[in-house]
């Protein structure tokens, strides 16, 4: 009879002993973990360049809904609706990368990937926020991505996975079919610490030097700065533009693996704070500095500039942050920074090839 056949078939379908014992173990211990993912807000002090975060409580009810999906659903419902699962992985250097899902439209793609310690690995590299160090790309074997951005989504301690949303753009539309996504570097053990920066060392007159900036930017245009702080245009003798910065502590006296405040001055109505990040080639060390005025208002720098100074084989990375402020008493002001650091750069060869039927 069908009933007997049905019972016989489903009698064989039982949970694994391991699963049951795990559940009972949790019941005996008197605790059952249900994770809540929360995003911590940071003050959005500037539109263009500062990190903005969201706060929410997003209960992850069951592992069958991947942790990243809830977060993407919250941050970008439209993207969540168009994500196509991929779930292909590869392992290198004891870390497994999995391409979880993709949304591909013309020449742009949003890819959700995860990183975790490989199953047979004895290392503990992935246990929190990590960074892909801009070493990723997407190719359809004809077009390669030319620009991109990466956003760390979450670390799911249950799965042991760190999730990212990678956005890439190519010059031409991607061809549906065979695609390859790769990552070459992973920065592990990221940390951040909020520390005060002592403004009592601020001087009112300081020597400056000219450097070749590796980057500059800010909310205000250069024209709002004193003339002496404008970028010096390239000339025949000096083909690379230069800028004036404080002639502070020399690179040789700075820490290679930590932050060093190298100068602080208030001149021509601009507070200038110079910090050396050490050797950032393999660390992504950086800081967000906030000035607090007498009324308690906090703000990010109006403009900043960065450059490198070589000492032997070490390249020291400097930043100078500029705040246009009418300061009568520097003691009425305070400053703090969110110092970002990382422990270990792992270089590997993670690449996943997958097929996309159509998009």
């Amino acid at each position, binding site marked *: *009879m*069908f*009933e007997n*056949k*049905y*019972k*016989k*078939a*489903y009698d*064989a*379908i*039982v*949970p694994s002993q391991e*699963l*049951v014992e795990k*559940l*009972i173990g*949790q*019941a*005996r211990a*008197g*605790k*059952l*973990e*249900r*994770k*809540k*993912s*929360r995003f*911590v807000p940071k003050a959005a002090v500037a539109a263009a360049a500062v*990190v903005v*975060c*969201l706060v929410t409580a997003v209960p992850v*009810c*069951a*592992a*069958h*809904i991947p942790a990243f*999906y809830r977060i993407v659903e919250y941050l970008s419902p439209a993207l*969540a609706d168009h*994500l196509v*699962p991929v779930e292909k992985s590869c392992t290198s250097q004891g870390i497994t990368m999995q391409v979880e899902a993709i949304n591909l439209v013309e020449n742009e793609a949003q890819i959700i990937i995860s990183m975790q310690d490989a199953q047979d690995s004895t290392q503990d590299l992935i246990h929190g*926020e990590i960074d892909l160090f801009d070493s990723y790309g997407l190719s359809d074997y004809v077009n390669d991505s030319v620009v991109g*951005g*990466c*956003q*760390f989504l*979450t*670390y799911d*301690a249950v799965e042991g996975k760190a999730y990212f949303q990678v956005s890439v753009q190519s010059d031409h539309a991607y061809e549906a079919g065979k695609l390859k996504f790769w990552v070459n570097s992973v920065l592990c053990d990221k940390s*951040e610490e909020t520390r005060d920066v002592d403004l009592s060392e601020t001087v009112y007159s300081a020597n400056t030097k000219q450097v070749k900036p*590796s*980057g*500059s930017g800010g909310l205000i245009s250069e024209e709002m700065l004193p003339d002496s702080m404008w970028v010096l245009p390239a000339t025949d003798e000096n083909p690379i533009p230069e800028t004036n910065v404080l002639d502070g502590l020399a690179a040789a006296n700075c820490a290679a693996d930590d932050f060093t405040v190298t100068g602080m001055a208030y001149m021509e109505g601009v507070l200038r704070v110079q910090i050396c990040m050490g050797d*950032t080639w393999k660390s992504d060390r*950086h800081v*967000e500095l906030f000035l607090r005025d007498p009324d308690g208002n906090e703000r990010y720098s109006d403009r*900043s500039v*960065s450059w490198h100074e070589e000492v032997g084989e070490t390249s020291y990375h400097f*930043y100078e942050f500029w705040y246009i402020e009418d300061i009568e008493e520097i003691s009425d002001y305070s400053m703090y920074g969110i110092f970002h650091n990382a422990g270990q750069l792992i270089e590997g060869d993670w690449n996943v090839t997958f097929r996309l039927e159509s998009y």
Partner: protein
Amino acid sequence: MDSMRREKRVKKMNTINRMKKPQTQQTETIYEEVIRRNSDMVYRLAYSLVKTRADADDIFQEVFLRYMQNAPAFQGAEHEKAWFLRVTMNCCKNFWKSPWTRRRVALEREEMEQGGLSCELDDDSAALVDAVKQLSKKYRIVIHLFYYEELSIEEIAKLTNAKASTVRTRLTRARRQLRSLLKEELRAFAE
């Protein structure tokens, strides 16, 4: 700036909720007994509805998580059984609702064809389970509750918030579909 080339970051703070600690050793024993008593039933229903071991594992854990967090006081064996069956079905419904799950269906089909996730059964049982998997969700529910859990039409109706006549109709249609799927195997069943 080098630091500006990166897009917005999200800082995660995890908080962990602990369920109510059992006040006594007796409570822990009760939890263990309830889990052992109902684990097979919950798992089988979950598997029949979500069709893969991986997803059934997740549903299974979610059901007992809810049990240990709510700690319902059962009024008897029937009440306990009904509670677990209902919660299992509710967890499965949440699972089906997710757009992510719907889009994974295609991926699962590929894996099932490769034999990656199917259970190891004898040929006849495997054929029957595969045939049941091809039924729609509402048919799989009534088939399993009627033939495995041996619930009456009225009990199934109460559990699924449907009319008894609806349950009878679904059962009839499910049998018809299974018959055509299983062909010879079901000839005896039809007679």
